[in-house]
């Protein structure tokens, strides 16, 4: 059957799989035998981006390591919704200790495996933005600095969603949270604050740093694959929209992740040893307004009159990302 004799046009390579595509070219999520690391029955909200992102990442890591993988989890939504004692949705060895110490625990697991001569087993640590950019940050930086053999994945939904949507160091400017209310002349989260952890990770000059979203599955899987082919400290930052905290429709989770990338607000790139090596160019760029408008956490920017001044500042951030990473190659 000449299934690959001509270029494949019907859905390009953006869909999860396709009956016409060679199996090697389909994503792991198209595989009925995928690891399915995060099984059904978990208590994540409808349309949870983090649940989706975690399965994407861990399934890809399971494929890359042939199933020889241990996961360490920070406290956060992902831990709470997946593992209400004594039930668990995880289908791999999985540890949870404290909010702050996931990178340190993972370093310890890697050291213990090394001491036992079990270096065929690989270690993945994961957490939300709260556990990563704020609470666990010291442990994370230490793990980077020691170049421990851990692949750390941050699922960034841009606030503390589990405890009621409080601002984190990853909350974007002007977003409304429970602790940054939409009042006053500068409503929502302050501008000019917060942390860009992928760039902080790059500053540690660790072997691998990358960003991804749940909207670009093939890109995300390729990055997990690349990360697992390397040793030492590796970091992946995945944007995972949160219908609850962002005030968006559960069905729009992937659409919003896509718009975040297409607007330039979330640059998707990878870096090795502190240098950017590749970026995902924006296909069909959109103004930031298109990304912000469907989210109720930005509703105060679209009132009567709309806060075009603040929208311009957000657009400026997107423009700067596009220039910094060379994202507009159309």
């Amino acid at each position: 059957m000449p299934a690959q004799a001509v270029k494949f046009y019907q859905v390009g390579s953006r869909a999860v799989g396709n009956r016409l595509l060679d199996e090697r070219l389909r994503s792991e999520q198209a595989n009925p035998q995928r690891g399915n690391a995060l099984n059904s029955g978990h208590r994540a909200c409808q349309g949870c981006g983090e649940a989706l992102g975690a399965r994407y990442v861990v399934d890809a890591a399971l494929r890359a390591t042939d199933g020889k993988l241990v996961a360490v989890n920070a406290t956060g939504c992902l831990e709470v919704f997946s593992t209400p004692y004594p039930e668990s949705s995880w289908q791999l060895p999985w540890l949870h200790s404290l909010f702050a110490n996931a990178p340190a625990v993972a370093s310890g697991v890697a050291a213990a495996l090394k001491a036992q001569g079990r270096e065929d087993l690989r270690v993945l640590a994961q957490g939300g933005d709260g556990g990563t950019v704020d609470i666990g940050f010291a442990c994370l930086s230490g793990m980077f600095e020691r170049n421990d053999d851990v692949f750390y994945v941050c699922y960034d939904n841009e606030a503390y969603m589990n405890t009621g949507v409080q601002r984190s160091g990853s909350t974007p400017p002007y977003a409304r949270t429970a602790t940054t209310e939409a009042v006053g002349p500068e409503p929502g989260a302050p501008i000019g604050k917060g942390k860009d952890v992928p760039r902080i990770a790059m500053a540690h000059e660790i072997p691998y740093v990358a960003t991804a979203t749940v909207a670009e599955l093939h890109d995300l899987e390729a990055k997990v694959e690349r990360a697992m082919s390397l040793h030492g400290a590796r970091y992946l930052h995945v944007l995972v929209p949160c219908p609850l905290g962002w005030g968006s429709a559960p069905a729009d989770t992937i659409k919003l992740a896509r718009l975040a990338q297409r607007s330039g607000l979330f640059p998707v790139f990878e870096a090795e040893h502190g240098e950017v090596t590749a970026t995902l160019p924006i296909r069909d760029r959109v103004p930031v307004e298109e990304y912000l408008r469907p989210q109720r956490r930005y509703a105060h920017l679209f009132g009567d009159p709309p806060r075009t001044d603040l929208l311009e500042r957000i657009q400026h951030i997107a423009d700067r990302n596009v220039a910094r990473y060379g994202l507009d190659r159309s």
Partner: protein
Amino acid sequence: MKSKPFAITLDIKSSLANHTGAWRTERPVYVDRWPPCSAACPAGENVQAWLYSAEDGSYETAWRRLVADNPFPAVMGRVCYHPCETACNRAQLDSAVGINSVERFLGDEAIKQGWQLPSPAADTGKRVLVVGAGPSGLSAAYQLRRLGHAVEIRDAGAQPGGMMRHGIPTFRLPRDVLDIEIARLLALGITLRPDTPVTDLREAMRGFDAAFLAIGAQLSHRAYIPAGQSARVLDALDVLGQAAGGDRPRLGRRVVVYGGGNTAMDAARTARRLGADEALVVYRRTRERMPADDIEVEEALAEGVRMRWLSTITQVDAGHLRVERMELDDAGVPQPTGEYEDLDTDCVILALGQDVDHSLVDNLPGLEVADGVVQVDDQMMTGYPGVFAGGDMVPATRSVTVGIGHGKQAARHIDSWLRSTHAAAEPTRESAEYGQLNTWYYSDAPHAVRPRLEAARRTSDFGEVVGGLDEDTALYEARRCLSCGNCFGCDNCFGVCPDNAVIKIDGAHGYAIDYDYCKGCGLCVSECPCGAIKMEPEVT
């Protein structure tokens, strides 16, 4: 368990115990919507279904799906004005899928490979008379024969094909293609009696249980134009018929064609091939209001045919004619202006439409003729029980494709009538709209244009103008189909479910929803590229 302390020694359980499907207020459901191409096809072809088979190279399966509705893919792949492509959702993305050219590729492939039409069902013992071996009559005969009825076709002409043979120039439809597709159809055991005009239908129907009339519209419409004694005024159908038969009627160097339909375009293009340096189409309204298909107009212009809009011919004499300039009034009706102009011409070809010769049915009681065409009910039956009619002789757009569609519909109703049942209404499917697609997932891929003979060369002979696609290009074109409203197996729903509640299965539809765990978030619906899933309220 009682010997163990509380809590910390509970055995690990799977979250599968937690049926999150209970949260759901809406449920995703897989649907097969009716794409606009099929909705627009007068022959009711399931275009998406046969393109789906062609996409993985299963050309024979694709062809078999196609001929379930239309026994003439090679002919239609050449002469159809493809309303399917006009309706195609992909036109809103880049350009419409070249459905017609893939149809032609499949038709030509069938001829090359010698694929045969599906065998008829067991004999029913019923006999049906079909009058007229044009597209409509042949289509009805084919469908009736497939259902197991004995069919006899009578035609006044020496060869079957009707307007496909006499009205369509050979540069659009080579006759060997037509001959093969008709012979393949007759080989199913259909009796054809050529040179057998039916004059008395009731007499002819002796021994038959039903009749289908499809005699077409072959009387050229006449308009009164004062003409001098030596003026040459010809009829378009005569010119086309002679040229199709291999004759070269002498038209002269300057030819004027009067009319704005497809026949006028064919006549002008034929005139160019018969040696006319100048072929001018005179039409009383504007290009926008011209009934001819755009493709035909474009090809005529490309071949050097000129057009004169808003003009009527008022007088024809030897060597010249007089036209009057018209103006459209507010209602869009052309009104005379009293401004005249004389044009030199060697002959005038009239292409002003055709009328039905309804003398055949004039003495049938109950049968109604209105506006010159035979009236039929929603079952395509005339007022005379057991006599059905279709094609150009009933009120409808006149095209080969419409004729084939009429034949198919009439066969279904004749079959029900013969079995004294009521034809089950074809199930209605909701339409697949462009807005239901998630076009992000489709790559930009422009339309593979069929090779065309150079315009300069094609006017010199009657060789076929539009070439076919090679296999690679046909496959490429088929894969441009967006598969609107029908699953094409991209695995998106299976991949994007945060709850792992989509199951991949074998079978016609490759996926199912696990409602024990589906929370009803709707991500599968929004990320389905082709709109083959919808949300329905949960029944409480």
